[in-house]
């Protein structure tokens, strides 16, 4: 997958992983991994960037006698997700156009 496209999609996936409930680093990785390849080293800068852009907030909470960081999606983060749904409709329309072109070409070739 194109690196820029993957980077954009990773941001969306991370936001999506906490849209219903606050989440923590390892859980985010576990939730996303079946759909898109992500490692700890990849997640860290994404979390920092989303936090810097005001799309998520972080709080520390005690868990098993140690502190764990929980990430919470902000209204700005939710807006980014909503924008993505609209963007994806446009991308899907382009995809449909591209595969239809291929289908027509294949049909003409036969």
């Amino acid at each position, binding site marked *: 997958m194109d690196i820029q496209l993957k980077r954009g999609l990773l941001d969306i996936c991370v936001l999506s992983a906490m849209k219903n409930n606050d989440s923590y*680093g390892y859980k985010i*990785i576990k939730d996303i991994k079946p759909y898109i390849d992500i490692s700890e080293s990849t997640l*860290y*800068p994404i979390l920092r960037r989303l936090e810097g852009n005001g799309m998520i907030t972080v709080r520390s909470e005690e868990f098993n006698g*140690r502190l764990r960081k929980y990430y919470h999606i902000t209204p700005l983060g939710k807006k980014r997700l909503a924008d993505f749904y609209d963007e994806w409709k446009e991308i899907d329309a382009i995809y449909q156009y591209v595969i239809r072109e291929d289908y027509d070409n294949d049909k003409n070739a036969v």
Partner: protein
Amino acid sequence: MTKMQFETSLRARLRGIPENEVNRYVEYYMEMINDRIDEGMGEDEAVAAVGHLDDIEARIRSERQQQFVNSAKPEGKKKLSSGAAAAIIIGCILFSPLIIGLLGIAIGLVFGVIGIAIGLFFAAVGIYIGALACVAAGFGIMFISIFSFSAGMPANGLFMLGGGFFLTGISILIVIALNRLAALIIRSIGRLFMRIDRRFARGGMV
């Protein structure tokens, strides 16, 4: 590798990065390891699962470099409000005699400095050529001294040989000193231009 060993190695590898940043990275990776251990994974396995230290270090350093590049990127040019633009135009008209005078002084200074630089350059070239000529002359005198020895004038020959050596030595020293001075000046000018270029790029003027 144990958690402790991982933490110590990571801290050692991130030397040079501000401590608070290092602490954030370490806390993040330790949390990932601990979460895996809480899920039932062995300590060694949990440490190995967060990735190889080489990759982690490379990733952190490249991310920091990217942040530095982004922070150095010039921001978009800000538009002036119409009031501010009008005030600048009126100010320019009112203070035009003063501005023109100052501009004249600045141009005069710039040309003066350029004139001095050109003068110094040609003076240096002159000294360089002179020094090279003295080297040749020194060798010439040393060569002539051979005839003085063969003509039965050892004192004269010795004096000429000594003089030739002295002239050649001094001239070679001058040539070396000028070479070093020229290299230093060229390096300094290069650095000055790079600094100016960086400042303009940071200020969004280019």
